[in-house]
């Protein structure tokens, strides 16, 4: 049986489009609202990345930092995040969930406890921004044992040799960082160049679902239609901030945005 993440990719492939992955921060702008946002966007997105906010992020740009600080200020704790995931997963029309964050949050929870809790609440995958290969070898094996996808990251600076080793150790999905940038940067590399790198990765192992993230927005997303999946994060976080500033409902606005994103790649 395919795991829910692979299944989501397969479904998108059957519809001849890339899977749409969204990133929102747990607890932004409140626990309740972030859950509502997840429920609303799961009508259009295939896989939902849920950011675990951290206050010393070394790879996040301004938009995601703003969302994270907002969530932390509102008191979000690790256990609240698991609760949000669980509530979401028991709602109708739920989608696979990937938690994305920094290793210290896992380390403090205890790797084993963390994975137990992930399983219990229905987390399907993990992206740990600052736990690169080979440092992540042991933890990623633990994830696999617990049927949780550990998602390896690749970037334009990754050497060919590393690409091969990392792909070999990866699970069902890999994440290609499109360019040298924190999250939320403007796309500063041509789509063709990004796609060339993407194809290089696919050649190493065509069976791995490879998604592209960083710099993907309403403006750029349609240039990457021939891929396995695309991640949009900062633009959504920015939309939440904009809605709050304009005293509008972020749930409605974000849901509209994700629906548009989906249309652009369908």
């Amino acid at each position, binding site marked *: 049986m395919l795991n829910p993440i692979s299944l989501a990719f397969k479904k998108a492939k059957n519809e001849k489009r890339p899977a749409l992955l969204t990133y929102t921060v747990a607890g932004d702008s409140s626990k309740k609202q972030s859950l509502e946002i997840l429920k609303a966007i799961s009508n259009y997105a295939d896989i939902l990345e849920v950011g675990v906010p951290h206050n010393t992020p070394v790879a996040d740009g301004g938009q995601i930092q703003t969302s994270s600080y907002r969530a932390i200020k509102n008191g979000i704790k690790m256990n609240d995040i698991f609760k949000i995931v669980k509530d979401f997963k028991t709602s109708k029309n739920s989608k696979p969930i990937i938690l994305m964050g920094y290793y210290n949050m896992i380390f403090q929870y205890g790797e084993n406890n963390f994975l137990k809790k992930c399983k219990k609440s229905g987390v399907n995958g993990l992206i740990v921004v600052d736990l690169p290969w080979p440092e992540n070898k042991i933890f990623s094996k633990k994830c696999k044992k617990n049927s949780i996808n550990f998602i390896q990251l690749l970037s334009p600076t990754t050497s060919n040799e590393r690409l091969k080793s990392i792909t070999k150790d990866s699970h069902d999905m890999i994440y290609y960082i499109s360019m040298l940038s*924190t999250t939320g940067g403007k796309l500063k590399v041509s789509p063709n160049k990004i796609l060339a790198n993407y194809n290089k990765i696919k050649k190493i192992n065509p069976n791995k679902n490879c998604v592209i993230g960083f710099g993907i927005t309403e403006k750029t997303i349609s240039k990457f239609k021939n891929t396995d999946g695309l991640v949009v994060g900062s633009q959504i976080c920015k939309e939440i901030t904009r809605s709050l500033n304009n005293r509008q409902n972020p749930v409605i606005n974000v849901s509209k945005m994700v629906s548009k994103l989906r249309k652009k790649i369908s």
Partner: protein
Amino acid sequence: MKLKKGIPVIDQGDKLGFWGGKFGGNFVPETLKKPIEDLEIQFNKLKNDKNFIRERDKYFKNWIGTPTRFIKLNNLTKHVGGAQIWSKVVSDANGGAHKIYNATVHCLLAKRSGKKVIIGDTGAGYAGKMLSMAAKKFGLKCKIFMGAKDIKRQQPNVKAMKKNGADVIPVYSGSQTLVDAVSECMRFWVANCDTTAMCVGSTVGPAIFVRICGWSTSQISRELKVQLINQFGKVPKKIKLYNCVGGGSSSFGFWNEFMDYDKKQVEFIGVEAGGPAKSKRHAAPLTYGSKIGILHGAAQYVNQDSDGQIEETESISAGLDYPGISPLHCFLKDTKRARYTAASDEEALKAYQIVTKYENLRPSLEPSHAFSVAIKEAKKFSKNTIVIINSCGDAYKDRGILEKKLGKKYVKSN
């Protein structure tokens, strides 16, 4: 966990960069793996390259000005009544603090690798000021990340950076201090590592930065060892080396050459920032038993909550105001080679008053923390104990704070 003899501590990490199997490492985004590996290869080669060492020593001697003085504080010794009190006046170095050694080495490395831009973090402003000086000297463009709160409280150094042509980029996130400046600097590097070199301002960050910085500041103890032998004919029987500890670069450099001595002969005392006496906040993770966590790419003892969010610190001294601590010091603590304690804001100010009253020496607020503990302990020691404090920064940068806290007369000269 064991400290090995005969091997530099910076080279005692394992293959993944962990000291004692658990401190340090490389908790970095994938994008930084390559530039970090490049820097590792470059540094591992150059640190044993005679030409490179010669070049380094040339700049250390002619430009930084080595050796810095090693002086007896006769009046203070008399006043305290106990051990002999000496100081290694590292603030003699060009620019006024030990941060110049690391900045110079990083610029030399950046030059050799063909980088045109160098970026760095700063708290007290010394790391930034020194990097701006070295960048200017070696023809590199320079960007300094600095917390908005620190920009306000360390204006003299900010002015110096700008005068040297550096871009000073204020950081408004989080507590707007050093921790946020380092995060922002690392983020900038993630986005620009193909063209830009990064200098981390202390013995913190991914393992290679810890090593380069420790290697650079070790100049301090190399000089001191020679000076001790010149002065006493040999390394005396009972020495106590007091040093303030923020990230840990000056203390590590002050101790490194004496690492293999028995601690009964050469004891290391690290003094962290205890913060205001009345506040629960502090910047003393080793003293107050903080748990191991990950900060800025390395595992270390760090102030954090139970979830793993990094906690805000508080200290009168911007240079010590950091929630984490070098993996090297975590290692020295757990192997019991060094002992760590803290001084409060008030104690540091008091020590500054005492030192400036009795001696012609103006330690900045950072080394004033070390003076505070040294003065207290020296009372109890015998006359043949040699207490040495690293006066690693000059108080000029603190004049605003000192004037506010102590009145005008404490800032009148320099």
